[in-house]
Every structure is written in structure tokens, then in C-alpha cells.
């Protein structure tokens, strides 16, 4: 099956939701071309609001719509969603207990040629600090479809990172998903790899194959929901393997690695290694260059895990 463009799936899903529920509305800040939601606008022109390059305005407007019972999805690049409109999302939407669904596209290094000004490595960390917020990053078109639908049902806000590019399906069509419940893609007993997002779940699966060649059986868990984290699943695989690794297209600080460390540190302290971007800004490049540059390839994961396991007496 060919890879499917994630952003096209997002737009289709919104349209399908909007067909059934008249409360669904869409907001854009002059990046409709980037999010691919022009098809939604064509179908529902009255329910689409493009506010131009004004992200803060967009988010507070979305809050006003939510106050009137609408279910707004507001899109922009993740670098802007995570920083530029943060106070508006924090106060107008979350503090006011309104249900606004903010979508940040082009997560982490997938911003490629837009470079460091557009490369969000801290958005998940920022979002995790908002009380009660659901934060997630789907890894494939199937889970994307399901999780967007689930988020629209929430009593509260959500932040979703959207990988725009084509991605292979990792799950069978129609697979069910719940926000806050991770999915075990592959079982294993030597090390548990918790990954989030299309890029790093894919790389984790590839790393698992490389590790198998060395006789290391790695479990790969798609922890698509960063908040609320599936603590039970984390602890279960920590107990099973005694070695936990996290992989994210994000800084190792504040996102998945931190969330998992918080759980393990208090519930089941265990050897742990966080893979992701270090304390650095982004830069331009194509995806292969950037993956190598920031240590986000399958072989980086394999090398890190091998070193980690040997250093820790394996």
C-alpha cells in the first residue's frame, strides 16, 4: 500500500466529522495551503475562517467560537502553535475551559528547508504544561483518522502535532484508538522503545529490525498521546524489559522522554535513555541530512541502544 499524505487524511477526517456534526469549524492563519484544508473550505466555506498571519487572534477567535458551542480546529505550523499563540491558547481556551483543538503542522525536523525559525523542538514540552490539555502526535494515517475523531469528542482542548507528508499505514484500516492509551506495535523483552510521531515510530521500527540482527529483541510502543500519558503501559514494559528508551522528533527535554522519566522515576525507577534533539536550535536541510544531524535515524537509535545496554551491564 502506498504511503498516504497525512495532511490529506487530516482534511478528509475533518470533512467527515463536519458532515455529521454541524458544530465543527476550521480556522487557519494563512497556512491553508500548507495544511491542505482547502478541500474543507470548498465543502464548508461558511464554516472556514482564515484570519491571515495572526495566530494569536486565530486562537482567541477559536475560543469565542467554542464559547458558542462550536468545535473549532485551528491549524498553523507547530513552531507558531507552540510559542506564538501560547498565552491565547493557555488563557482564552484552556483556562476558560473551552474546547479548542489546536493543530501544529510540520513537527520537529520535518520543517526541513524552512530551517531553524520554523523548527519546533519544544512545542510538546510547552503544551504538556497546560493543565488538563490532551497532547498527541499520530504516527500513521489510520491512527490520525481515529485520534482526530476522538479529539473532537473531548470536553476540553487538544494539541495535535501533524506530520504533513506521506507516511505508511502502521495499523489495519478501522483499528480503534483511544487518546491516552498507547499501542504496542511490536513486543520484545530486551528493551522497550517508546516512540511518538510518524517519523520516530517509523525509525524505531527500523531500529528494531537492526537490533534483531544483533540478537536484541526490542519492543516498539507507539505512545501517541503524550498527555495524559499511558503510565500503566510505560511501567508494564519497564518491568518486562528493565531498559527503556524514548524516541521523539523533539527535544529530549520536556516531551516524551521527560514524561516517561517522570513516571518511571516515581513508580518504577529503571535504566532509561532519551533519544531526540539535544539542547539545540534547528537548521535547514533535507530530511535525511537533518535526521543524521540531530541523531534521529534508525542506526542512531540502534547504536544508542547498543551502547546503552552494554554500559548498563547487558
Amino acid at each position, binding site marked *: 500500500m502506498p504511503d498516504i499524505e497525512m495532511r490529506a487524511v487530516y482534511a478528509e477526517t475533518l470533512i467527515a466529522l463536519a458532515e455529521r456534526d454541524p458544530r465543527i469549524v476550521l480556522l487557519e492563519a494563512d497556512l491553508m495551503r500548507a495544511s491542505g484544508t482547502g478541500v474543507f473550505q470548498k465543502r464548508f466555506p461558511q464554516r472556514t*475562517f482564515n484570519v491571515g498571519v495572526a495566530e494569536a487572534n486565530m486562537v482567541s477567535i477559536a*475560543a*469565542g*467560537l467554542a*464559547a*458558542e458551542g462550536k468545535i473549532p480546529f485551528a491549524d498553523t505550523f507547530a513552531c507558531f502553535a507552540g510559542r506564538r499563540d501560547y498565552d*491565547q491558547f493557555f*488563557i*482564552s481556551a484552556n483556562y476558560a*475551559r473551552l474546547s479548542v483543538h489546536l493543530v501544529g503542522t510540520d513537527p520537529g525536523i520535518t520543517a526541513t528547508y524552512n530551517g531553524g525559525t520554523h523548527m519546533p523542538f519544544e512545542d510538546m514540552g510547552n503544551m504538556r504544561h497546560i493543565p488538563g490539555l490532551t497532547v498527541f502526535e499520530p504516527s500513521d494515517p489510520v491512527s490520525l483518522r481515529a485520534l482526530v475523531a476522538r479529539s473532537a469528542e473531548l470536553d476540553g482542548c487538544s494539541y495535535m502535532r501533524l506530520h504533513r507528508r506521506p507516511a505508511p499505514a502502521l495499523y489495519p484500516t478501522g483499528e480503534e484508538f483511544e487518546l491516552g492509551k498507547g499501542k504496542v506495535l511490536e513486543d520484545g523483552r530486551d528493551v522497550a522503545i517508546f516512540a511518538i510521531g510518524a517519523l520516530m515510530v517509523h525509525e524505531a521500527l527500523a531500529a528494531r529490525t537492526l537490533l534483531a540482527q544483533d540478537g536484541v529483541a526490542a519492543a516498539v510502543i507507539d505512545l501517541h498521546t503524550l498527555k495524559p500519558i499511558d503510565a500503566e503501559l510505560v511501567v508494564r514494559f519497564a518491568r518486562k524489559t528493565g531498559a527503556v528508551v524514548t524516541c521523539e522528533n523533539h527535544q529530549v527535554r520536556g516531551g516524551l522522554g521527560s514524561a516517561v522519566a517522570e513516571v518511571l522515576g516515581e513508580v518504577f525507577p529503571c535504566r532509561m535513555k532519551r533519544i531526540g534533539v539535544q539542547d539545540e536550535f534547528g537548521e535547514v536541510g533535507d530530511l535525511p541530512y537533518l535526521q543524521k544531524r540531530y541523531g534521529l535515524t534508525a542506526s542512531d537509535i540502534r547504536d544508542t541502544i547498543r551502547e546503552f545496554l552494554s554500559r548498563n551491564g547487558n
Partner: protein
Amino acid sequence: MDPSELQFLRNIAKEIRKRTIDSIGRLGVGHIGGALSVVEVLTVLYYRHMRVWPDQPRHPERDRLVLSKGHAGPALYSVLAMKGFFPEDWLHTLNRGGTRLPSHADRNRTPGIDMSTGSLGQGLSAAIGMALAARLDNASHTIYAIIGDGESDEGQVWEAAMAAAHFKLNRLIAFTDANKMQIDGYVRDIMNVEDLPAKWQAFGWFTQRVDGHDIAALDQAIIAARGEPSRPSMIIMDTIKGKGAHFAEGRLDNHNMAFDYATALEAIRRLDEQTD
């Protein structure tokens, strides 16, 4: 408006003022300046123009108000109490731990508050969202919003200004409480925002400027705004920060001011003595 109606509204304004001074005075500190400068516009809105149902604070047909300068909450609470949204003795609990009446307007704590505000610059955008929803629903209620002149330093206010005009939100009527002061000094000295009418006009709004304590003038301006067919409306109100409280009126330090209850009672006594 005939003279007896005008007198009625003046009395209402006095009662709102008294309750605002009283509620803040019981606590001993609060945003007395910016609350007192919006007393007249709240009077005219709630007693002359806004359809509200005190026993159904979220009635779908109600007119909405976003108090974007959310720190003026105490004045709005006084109005809502008088209108019967909640018992008047709630006013005694202003800002106390666990209260239903916090310093900044909160839609989840207080019946009759349509939007949570307090981080300046966001309320007008929220009001736009409400107006867009009203249009989607073919509703005919009006959305009012009150912003401050100091608040107009915030860039988001101008994002909202652009958008409301672009979307032709004629059911959105906003007020700028131009009380000429912000926290660190006069607006003209800290960050000048004038010429306000020229700005709003240039942004495509139907713009008026009135004495913000002149009830009849406010009423006329709102009537004109409600008749505007295709543009949002902005009514710039020239007001006095702290108006009506002898200890606060016109003082640069009255944004968030400490005063004891005896002082509050004296201010109330003076208001009662006035014949207007």
C-alpha cells in the same frame, strides 16, 4: 431618552458605583480605577440595551458582553448582582479564597460572565469568535466588548480590529474605555495610542467618540452602532479612571489600589449626598 429615564439610569450608575467601592473596600485592595470608569457604559448596556435572562445566564438569545479589560470585574459583578444573576451578598466575597467573584472576569465561576479575561488583548478576538458563531447560526443578538486604552498597546487588539472589519461583523459593538491612564503613568507618556478614532476608522470600523460618563450620549452612540449595517462599531469613551471615588479619582496610582473600609464608606456617603 426622557428626563425620568435618564434620572433612573443615573441612580443605577450610582448604585453600581457604591457596590463596586464597597466590595473592593471590604477586601482592602483592588482595581478600583478601571472598574469605576466603566460604570456608565455598563449601566446603559444592562439597563437599556442588552437582552439578558438572569435566571438563564447562558440563554441562547441573550446579548453577549466580553469584558476584555477583565480587571474591571468588580463593576460588572455589581451590575450582575443588581440584575439578579446571583445574590447581592456574593459581592462581599470579592477575591476571597474560593470565591465565585475573582478579580478578573471568569465565565466558569460567575453566572452572567460570557468569557474569561484578564490577560489583556484577547477579549476582542473572543468577541469576534462569538460574532462569527452568531452569523453561522443566523442569530440576531449583539456582541459587546469593552477594551482599555492601555490594553490597546497590545498588538492582538489590532489583529482583532483588522479581522472584525474584514469579516464585516456589524453585530459586534466595542468600547474603548479611554481613561487616559495605565499602570506606570498616563497612556500618552507610557505608550501613546491616540489618535484612537482615526485608527479605528482606518481599520474600517464605524467609529464614535463620546464622554464615557454621559449616559444619554452613550445611549445615542449605541443606538447608532446597532443600526450600522456592515461594519463593526467602536465607541471611544473619554472617562476618568476612578470616577466617583474621592480617594481614587484621577490618581495615577489607582489601577490596583489599597484602601480601608472606612475610606470606602466615606466615598459611598459622598455619593449618597450628591444630587444630580
